[in-house]
């Protein structure tokens, strides 16, 4: 079984790519972080574990160098979507797919430990052992999975040039949108309350936007000053519009990779909006982002089959 390090070494030595973009061990417990490997002797830094929370596709738009990228199932779908939006030159990209059992939700673990500082953490595959000053605790991985990973149906990437890891049986989650459906039956005051509450946590750091592979606009709408769509302060309506419009801009493009949720320092429930839009796109267009390489992106292509209740026939 070839390892990531062996593949990276081979690709660099052969000159097939100038750099390999993957994950290395972080300096904090529960964190593995992005790394750009350019020398074959550094290839041994590459790892893959339950702490690989970033979507590396975010570094790909307009990338000029020949690059190999390590891609989980969700990240690989982002790459397909980026290719359809003409943001990546496929001839410059080599996708090393990895079979992924999910990423842990570090905020959930921190909460379960009563915010006791974590000294170290070990990924044991089915479980995670976390050590604080008060001792060690073992969590079943299924207890502490990131929300999006708990309902993931793409553990094996859909598209890759080479695959690392044994293909595993995909879980099927027919009730994936149950929470969304239940939420939508609530009266509008309750739904508004949730939205206002989540937006109130937002500090406009834009970690979500920067972590997202699909947010690649050279000038984001929040940064535009002519016209100025929204102000840049903490006025609640400005923050709410940022949250709302960013979600809308991702409709039919987001692959639910969870990178934004992991990046957000304030624990904003970004998926509350994104999942509702994902369900809406599935209902209206029968489309799942980045799965088929040929299907056009649903909100940029119009076909006569589109079931839009806003279109008068």
């Amino acid at each position, binding site marked *: 079984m070839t390892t990531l390090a062996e593949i990276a070494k081979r690709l660099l030595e052969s000159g097939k790519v100038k750099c390999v973009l993957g994950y290395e061990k972080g300096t904090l417990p529960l964190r593995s972080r992005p790394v750009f490997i350019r020398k074959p002797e550094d290839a041994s830094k590459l790892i893959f574990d339950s702490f690989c929370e970033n979507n590396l596709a975010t570094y790909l738009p307009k990338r000029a160098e020949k690059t190999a990228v390590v891609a989980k199932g969700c990240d690989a779908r982002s790459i397909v979507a980026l290719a359809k939006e003409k943001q990546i030159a496929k001839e410059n990209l080599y996708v090393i797919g990895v079979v992924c059992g999910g990423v842990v939700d570090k905020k959930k673990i921190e909460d379960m430990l009563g915010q006791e500082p974590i000294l170290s953490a070990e990924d044991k595959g089915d479980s995670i052992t976390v050590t604080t000053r008060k001792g060690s605790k073992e969590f079943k991985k299924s207890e502490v999975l990131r929300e999006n990973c708990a309902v993931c149906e793409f553990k094996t990437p859909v598209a890759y040039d080479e695959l690392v890891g044994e293909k595993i049986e995909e879980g099927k989650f027919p009730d994936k949108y149950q929470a969304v459906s239940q939420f939508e039956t609530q009266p509008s005051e309750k739904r508004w309350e949730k939205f206002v509450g989540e937006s109130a946590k937002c500090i406009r750091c834009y970690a979500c936007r920067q972590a997202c592979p699909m947010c690649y606009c050279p000038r984001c709408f929040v940064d535009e000053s002519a016209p100025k769509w929204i102000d840049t*302060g903490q006025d609640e309506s400005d923050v709410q519009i940022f949250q709302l419009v960013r979600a809308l801009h991702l409709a039919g493009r987001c692959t639910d990779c969870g990178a934004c949720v992991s990046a957000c320092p304030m624990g904003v429930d970004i998926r509350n909006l994104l999942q509702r839009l994902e369900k809406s796109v599935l209902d209206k267009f029968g489309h799942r982002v980045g799965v088929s390489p040929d299907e056009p992106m649903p909100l940029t292509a119009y076909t006569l089959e589109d079931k839009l209740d806003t279109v008068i026939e």
Partner: protein
Amino acid sequence: MVAKGYIEKSEVEKILRNLQKDYRVIAPVKRGEFVEFDVLGADEKPLLDFQNTKNIPKSFFFPQHEKMLSYEGTGVGGFKLTEAAIDAPKTLIFAMRPCDAKSLVLLDCVFDDPQYKDPYYLEKRKNTVIVCLGCNEPCPTCFCNWVDCGPFWQEGCDILLTDLGDGYIVKEISEKGKDVLPTSRSASPEDEKKAQNLALQANAQLPKPVSVAAAKTALDTNFDSPFWKEFSETCLNCGVCTYFCPTCHCFDIQEECTSCYGKRVRNWDSCMFEIFSLHASGHQPRTEKFQRVRQRFMHKFKYFPDNFASFACVGCGRCVVNCPVNIDVREFLTEMASPQKEAKEQKK
């Protein structure tokens, strides 16, 4: 080190309620999943068994969003301008950590300059008493001892508390701190010995210091080093590090207006954002990400010390903990301070 007095932990809540009569009391409280500094509610209990807060007390002196003035049209060509009242009630911040207190002394360098005095910041500073709580157990990510700070550092504190278990030793540091907290008795020599031991233990828990002075020396001559491109490659250029940093102070003045009324506001800005250095002409001096990342680290560890003889960092570790891609300033300083660094660069 002669301490003033001793407060039983059981007395703290009563003391704070009394203080609330004269001060807006800000203390660590549970807000959602995090511990934050916020105005203590009339019946709210502070959370004193905490590491450090998610938010930074800097916000009470230099808020993220502050109104400076407002204006409205009064007919053709006419307008009325109203300066905003500076929001600076008499305040007491309870249980601030020494790193955050020191950060205010560093911010004073910027906002309390002999030539330029920032009225919004200074009014709040003048009206606030800072009661610090020393750290018996620093976080695994703290490195205050690297940057002329420490778990019981006194710079910026009006009063310093040491947690002895059943109560606190109260040490008045400044004039402002005199007689603010009522104490039940004076501190005994045993109390003081205990406090000294706690300080030694706390310092022992911190990572072995790296010479930040050596790091600065490396920075003095490495502006054009290829190191920056490599170091900054994974940075997302979001604003997390700047927004959680107690010493970051860049701001953006904006007009928020319609055709007939508006307000001028000051918001936090971040050198990490691409538009931070964008000129109105369209010229962009920092087109590349590495230039922005270089700017941040140079400011903290070279330009600020060049101007004010202090590093613009207090070792609180919030940037380390919150960075979405785990860029680690401790790693950066360790590399910069390593003797091989200078030799390597000189060879190039």
